Structure formats: structure tokens, C-alpha cells
């Protein structure tokens, strides 16, 4: 897949929710962030500036406010803001996103085996850039099953509350783990 913007270069992805937490993560030296929630439209300037500096920005389309889940919003993210990629549980939205040359991260809820099967059966074609398992702590338990279906990179997102937990998830085979807690970001400072 052709990608023109920077990808994640580290193992920890700070999950931010506003311009303040974005500045905090960038201040610690991170070159990649996940906009997990909050109003994207209230921080357009900060996002555009960061993207211009080569920061890889991923946007959780299911969590942020202010955007419609449609092509116009995706075009805005890709061409105006130059963000790197999007995260969603919705296969149709990700299929659209790949047309805008956005990296697609498909989130799968790992709650129980039946729910996981449903999530895995919805994985998009073409294959997503990565599969995000939520909660991240379930990665060790489900990685093998996910690998049987798809060999995309595995991310762990959700409920990471300590650097120790983040390391566990990475050790289990995830390539990226996200956390919304600044104390965890400090511990992984690049």
C-alpha cells in the first residue's frame, strides 16, 4: 500500500484526547500519537502542525467527536490534515479509508471467544495495515488465534495502566501498544 506519511517508529503509541495531551506526548519526544477521543475539530491546528513536522498521527474514528463516518471526513483527514492512518471497528469505513491512502487499523474487541470470532470474520480486504486488539491485556491470550486468520501487525489498545503491562503486551508479540496515561509515556520515553 502506498503511504506518504510517517508510520509508527516506536513501540509505544501515546493515546491523546486534546491539544494539551498532544503537546505533552510530543514534548516527551514521541514521533507518533493516537487521537483516541475528544473533538478532533477543536485541535485541527495542533494536529496539522504536528503532521507537518512528520509526526505520525492515527485517529480512532469510533472515538473522536466532530467527524461523520463518511468519505468527506476521510478526505479531510488524508488531504488537509495529512494524518497517517485511522482506527475503527467498522470494515466499511476502513475500506473507504484505504482509498484515501490512509493506513487502516482494524480494531477487534477481544471480550470472549465468540466475540473474537465475530471480529476476526469481519477483517477487511485488502488486509489492514494493523489489527488493534482491545483490551491490550488480552493480546497474549488471543494472538495465536488472530495469527491463524491474518498476519498483519498486532497492536494492543485499551486499559494499559502501567509500563509493566505495556511491556507484557509487547513481549507477547504486539508491535505497538497504546496507553492514555502520561506516566506510562514517560517510562517509554524514546
Amino acid at each position, binding site marked *: 500500500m502506498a503511504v506518504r506519511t510517517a508510520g509508527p517508529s516506536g513501540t509505544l503509541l501515546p493515546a491523546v484526547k486534546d491539544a494539551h495531551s498532544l503537546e505533552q506526548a510530543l514534548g516527551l519526544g514521541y514521533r507518533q500519537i493516537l487521537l*483516541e*477521543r475528544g473533538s478532533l475539530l477543536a485541535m485541527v491546528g495542533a494536529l496539522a502542525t504536528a503532521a507537518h513536522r512528520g509526526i505520525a498521527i492515527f485517529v480512532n474514528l469510533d*472515538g473522536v467527536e466532530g467527524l461523520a463516518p463518511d468519505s468527506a471526513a476521510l478526505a479531510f483527514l488524508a488531504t488537509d490534515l495529512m494524518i497517517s492512518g485511522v482506527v475503527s471497528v467498522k470494515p466499511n469505513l476502513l475500506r473507504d479509508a484505504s482509498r484515501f491512502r490512509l493506513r487502516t487499523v482494524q480494531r477487534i*474487541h*477481544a*471480550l*470472549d*471467544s*465468540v*466475540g473474537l470470532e465475530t471480529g476476526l470474520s469481519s477483517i477487511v480486504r485488502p488486509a489492514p495495515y494493523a489489527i488493534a486488539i*482491545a*483490551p491490550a*491485556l*488480552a493480546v497474549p*491470550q*488471543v494472538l495465536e488465534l488472530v495469527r491463524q486468520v491474518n498476519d498483519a501487525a498486532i497492536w494492543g*489498545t*485499551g*486499559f494499559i*495502566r502501567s509500563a509493566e503491562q505495556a511491556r507484557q503486551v509487547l513481549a507477547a508479540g504486539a508491535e505497538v501498544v497504546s496507553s*492514555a496515561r502520561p506516566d506510562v509515556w514517560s517510562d517509554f520515553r524514546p
Partner: protein
Amino acid sequence: MPRDAGGSTYNRSTAEEVPLALRPTLSPARPLAVDRSAGRLFEAFQRVPVIAVIRRAEDLPRALASRVPAIFFLRAPAFHLGPLVWAVQARGKMAFVHIDLIAGLGKDRAGVAFLAREIGVNGIVTSHGHLVAAARSDRVIAVQRLLLHDDLGLASALSAVERARPDIIEVLPGVIFPEIVAQLRERLTIPMIVGGFIRDETGKAAALLAGARAITTSTPELWP
């Protein structure tokens, strides 16, 4: 499905239509009374704190032969559930149906009423607050699932559970429960059971140690 004057047409017809492979070993006769006391279930958890989750009909005989006090049906065929549920009840166990995952059944009051009155389940399992309310008005035990995939949804999920006031909360996935139990207890006094990827004794012990009344699992090796 409306009841006719002679009782449910459903009850009569399905006993013959259910394929042999799906038929439980015991008589499919519907019990006269259904125990819908959550208190008695909690007493039973003190002896055996495990609920068997049935994903495939083949697993049912093993669950019936085990000492689990309750069985959850997931993804079962709604209109062929009767004999399966009655076989569970004939063994002195409680039968719960996961209404969100049942194909063919409306996720609404009529769907709950069908399970409560026509099938005669002991309780239902759902993620939806409005179905908990429906269960209450039909006097079946309501188990509400608290799905913990990220911090983002936690606050709204907790509010939803507080509003709905189910008899039991099922927290998923199991690995999160010890991490978050203190936070849950600050808000909730409703008894909690834990499920989702509990596949060995270690996972079971961790959940029970953290304060779960019982675990739910589809792994037959964990059914005592």
C-alpha cells in the same frame, strides 16, 4: 409467538423437529416451575463457582453431567431451545440464554417474553439495559454484560449498568477483572461474575481471588 388456548404450539412441535444430534439425553418435558431466585444461584456458587457456556450443542451433555449450577446458551437456535433448556432444568441447574447472540429472536421485549414464558428460561444474558428492564418485568434473572475493551467506554458502560440494575453483572474479558475490580466496587454493589478467555485454572483462580462470585467458561475442562 402468541400462546393458543391449548398451551404453546411451539412446545409440542419442536420436540419432534429437533434433530437427534441436538436432542438432550433426558426427557424434553418442560418443568412445571422455574426457579428464578438469584439468591439461590449465589448459594450454589459457594459450592461450585463455575457457569458452563455452551457454544455448540455437542458440549451440552458434558455440561449436564458436570456439577455446574448454571448453564449459559450462546448462539443457540432460538426456536429449538426448549428441549435444551428443559434438560438443563431437569438436572437441577439454571438455564440462561444470551439473547443478544440468538439468531432469529428480536432483541426486544417480545423476545425476552418469548424466552421467559414460552421457553421458561431461568434468566437471560444481555449487554442492553432495556432488555434488563424487560427481564425484570417478566421476572427472570437478568445478567448484564459489562464489556471492557477500553477506558473510553468504561464510564458510560458503568452508568448503563447502574441505571439498568441487573441481578448479576458479567465482566468481560477475565484478564481485565483483577485490574479493575476496585474501581468497579466503588460504583457498583451488584454481584459480579467474570468471563471471557478464562481457559485454565490460573485464569479461574485469579478471577475468584479478585472477588468474582463465579466464572463463566466454554472450556469443558473447567467444568467440575
